[in-house]
Structure formats: structure tokens, C-alpha cells
């Protein structure tokens, strides 16, 4: 595997609805290198620090689910096709491969790395179930991208306005079976709940953590998180951790 470098990407498509967006980049030098669960550190024009993002890979392209939170992500959602960006990639550890069936639980932009994983595993003959949860139908336009993964996909919304009513983690006890591996990426509360279900069934579970990052490559020590195995750095030791090592309650909201 080639070590990380600073790569060129070109924004080629953008679909924005409210504060969510799907952005497609042409990134032929990154796409073949990015293992599912790894991330890129993206330079958004006009800002000093890069922003970590975990995209899915579609042949030579990257697909990013974005939620406009602060200045960086909001600005990202306004960039026009043709904009040239730079990204450090590939970064972080990525997901381990499961033995049997993979059950994926995603919330919000956690759909990005899990779409990547789903496509990757389906291509390798794994059975993959993906449960995506959202508050309301604001992420309904993610659906075609997720469905095209070849996984069996179910959508949940808190208000029932799109897909099934409720949380994906409510369905999880009925979906998980012996031999499965759980992968959860989304809000901490969701990951914690999902990991709890897996634990009661004694199934392996992996989650992906977020942290405020400056360098993304291990040099600034800004992304420290406490874990059961001591302090770890999300950008190099993670972002993927076995769920049992994560101290969910200590993480910032």
C-alpha cells in the first residue's frame, strides 16, 4: 500500500439539500488506495486547516456525504463543479474484514465509509445488510447511492417520514445473528447503542470515531481519545476501533 501523500481531486458533481450534500470527486490517484473506513484530510479553499472526511469509492471517483456543520463543511457544500482541491490520503486504519455477514449501521454522513465498505464486501461475495437512520427525510436523497451498493438496505427515520419509523438500532436485535460482524458509523449515541446490542449477542463490533484534527497524520497529537487500552490518536490508531475499547461517555457530543 502506498503511504499517504497530498493528492489532487476535482469536484465533478454536487447535490445539496438543506444542510446535507452528496459530492462526487474525480480522484484517480486516491480511489485505488483508499481502504474502507480510511479517510482523507481535505483542504477546503479559504480555510487554514484541512477537514477529515471519509468518502466512499466508486471506481476512480470519491463520493462524500457531507453535513454542513461549521464554516468548513458549509463552504464545501457551495463549491462548484470544476473546483480543484487537495487531500491527504489514504489516512487511518480502516475496517477489518469480517468473516461472515456484515451488518452496517449508519447515521448521517457515516453513510460514506459504510457505503464504501458495503460495495467492497458485496464485490467480494459477502452478504451485507445496511441500516441507515436519520431524523427525518432530509437524507432521503442518499438512498439511491446506498441502494446501488448491492447491500440489502433499510431506512429508518425518527418521524417515520422516510422508510420505517424508529431507530436502526431498534431493528438491530432482529437483524443480527450469530457469525455476523457489526460496523457502526454515526452519532456516538447510535454507535454506543449498536455496539451494546452486538455485545449482548457476543458479536464483534467496530465503530469509527471523530475528533477535531489538525494534521490528520499523527504529528500534532490533537486527535487524542481515551480508550480502554489507554490514550489513542484517532488519525493513526483509528478512526476505526473495536467497540469494546471505546469509552463512549467520555467523548464530546
Amino acid at each position, binding site marked *: 500500500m502506498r503511504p499517504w501523500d*497530498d493528492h489532487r481531486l476535482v469536484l465533478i458533481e454536487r447535490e445539496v439539500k438543506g444542510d446535507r450534500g452528496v459530492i462526487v470527486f474525480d480522484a484517480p490517484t486516491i480511489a485505488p488506495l483508499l481502504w474502507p473506513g480510511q479517510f482523507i484530510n481535505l*483542504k477546503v479553499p479559504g480555510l*487554514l*486547516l484541512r477537514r477529515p472526511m471519509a468518502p466512499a469509492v466508486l471506481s476512480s471517483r470519491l463520493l462524500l456525504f457531507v453535513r454542513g456543520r461549521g464554516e468548513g463543511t458549509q463552504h464545501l457544500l457551495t463549491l462548484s463543479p470544476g473546483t480543484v482541491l487537495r487531500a491527504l490520503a489514504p489516512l487511518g486504519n480502516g475496517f477489518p474484514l469480517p468473516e461472515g455477514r456484515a451488518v452496517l449501521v449508519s447515521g448521517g454522513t457515516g453513510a460514506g465509509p459504510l457505503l464504501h465498505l458495503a460495495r467492497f464486501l458485496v464485490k467480494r461475495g459477502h452478504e451485507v445488510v445496511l441500516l441507515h437512520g436519520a431524523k427525518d427525510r432530509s437524507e432521503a436523497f442518499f438512498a439511491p447511492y446506498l441502494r446501488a451498493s448491492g447491500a440489502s438496505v433499510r431506512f429508518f427515520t425518527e418521524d417515520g417520514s422516510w422508510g420505517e419509523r424508529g431507530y436502526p438500532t431498534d431493528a438491530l436485535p432482529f437483524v443480527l445473528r450469530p457469525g455476523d460482524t457489526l460496523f457502526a458509523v454515526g452519532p456516538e449515541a447510535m454507535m454506543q447503542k449498536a455496539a451494546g446490542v452486538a455485545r449482548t449477542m457476543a458479536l464483534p463490533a467496530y465503530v469509527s470515531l471523530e475528533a*477535531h484534527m489538525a494534521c490528520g497524520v499523527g504529528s*500534532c497529537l*490533537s*486527535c*487524542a481519545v481515551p480508550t480502554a487500552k489507554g*490514550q489513542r490518536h484517532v488519525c493513526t490508531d483509528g478512526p476505526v476501533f473495536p467497540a469494546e475499547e471505546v469509552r463512549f461517555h467520555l467523548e464530546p457530543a
Partner: protein
Amino acid sequence: MNPLEVEFLGVRFPNPVVTASGTFNYGREYAHLYPLSRLGAITTKGTSPRPIAGAPPPRITETPAGMLNAIGLENKGVEAYLQDELPWLKALGARVIVNVFGERPQDFAYVAAKVSPYAELIELNLSCPNVHGGGLPYAHDPRAAAEVVRAVKGATDRPVIAKLSPEGPTLEVAEALEAAGVDGFSLINTLRGMRIDLETGRPILGHRTGGLSGPAIRPLAVRLIYELYQNTDRPIIGMGGVRTVEDALELALAGARMVAVGTATFADPYAPIKLVEGLERFFADREDTWLDWVGGAHAG
């Protein structure tokens, strides 16, 4: 002749570009991008006698043309540093400036003594809290800072430079350190700032406050280097928001004999080497050299 060559306290550096402490760790993360020996020097992450876990997350956040950091001095301690990093860096042919700190003067001295065989220069981070001085940083207390210098000078024969804070009485501290025998200076360290999250209503950083760095503070760096240069004949490593050739030359004119690249490396990991190459191009078709620019704003 190499127009970028710099002699600094008896040490020869091929160019004046160094990495700023804490923004390049011990260099390992960047060694596959470019030869670390191409940089003037690597200033390593602040190192203390024993490992320190650091501050609670989040540890960084962006601000207008800058960033705040509250890493909390996380480092793996001088023993691990000596074992894992220093010999490796030396073997690469890199020149190393070792940034040291501790709670008491003798802690600084302890680390300095240990790393001396590998260090071109010892840099004292005086912005760390003086536990016996009520927790205020050494940089706010000329007498306590001078004690650190005396302790370190007694423990190493490498040249010792003190890293000055833009907070506190900077020039007064510098004067006291000269009297205590310091060989040179580096500045500026960060300024304490804060951002508050409107959603939670609380400071964003786990430590609440953090150090402001980046282009936002460059005008403060230029002013302080300019003022210090007028008050000392010891050499200065300048830092604070440097990225481009123009930035580096501005600090040189103010009085910096060498310049450090810090926050810019987060935006672009190639920033230090690009600055070396940019300076090479700048001086390639000129008669003068880097050293001719140093202190130029004071001439005449």
C-alpha cells in the same frame, strides 16, 4: 557558495528553515515525503522527563487565519524519545533542535543533559507552567525563567536558546535570560485564546483556552522579533504564521536569523520543504544572501 547557509551559535545549517516544535512531532510522519536532511533543522515536539498524557479533547479548533491548540504538552518522555526517535533522526542526517520543558528547573536540565549528544541546539519552552510559581508560565516570571537557563547551562555544553512567549513581559524576560547566560532566542510561542461553541454554550476546547498560532499572529511575531533584535545581539529563530518566502523574508528583516514553519505544515505537509525550495529560487539569481536580509529593517 550556498546563499542560504546559516551559522547559528557555532552550528552550520544548510538553510534557515526549521520546523516549529509541536507541529512536526519527531519528524517520522513526514520522512517519506522528502528527506528531512533537506530542512535546515527539525525542532522536535516538546519533551519532558516523563511521559505526559496531555489535555482532554477537543484539542484544536480553527479561528480566523489561525488555530487554537491545547495539546497539553502530550509527549512520550525523554527515555522513549532517546530510544525511538533521536538516533533515527540523526541517522537520516537531519539536524535536530530539541525542545525541552519540565515542571522545575532541574527537569529542564535533566532532559537537556540526556539529549545533548544528539542536539544541535537546546530550545527551552518557557510557556509551560511553573508549578512552584503558582502555575503561571515561566515566561511570565523573569527570575524563575532565569533559573531554568542557569540549570540547563550547567547541564549541557550545547548552545541553549529560550523560546519566548508574546504574553508576559517578553523583553524583560529576555534581558534576565541573557544575564543568566542564554545563548539565543526563539519567538513567538502562541497566545492564549478561546472559542465558545454556540450550540453547547461552552468553550470548544477541552482545556477551555488554547494557544493561537498561524498567519493571524504574524504581525505580532514581526513586532516582537524587531523589538528583541534591538535589545540583544544573540541570534533569533523567528516563528509565527510563516509559510511563504515573503513571510520568511519579513521575519528576517525584523531580525530572525532562522525561521520556523509551524501551523502551515498542517495546511500543507510540504510547507517546510517548499519554503526551502522557494528561498533557493529566490536567491538563485541574486547577489545577496539570506544573511544579508537578517535585521535589514533596522539598517541605516
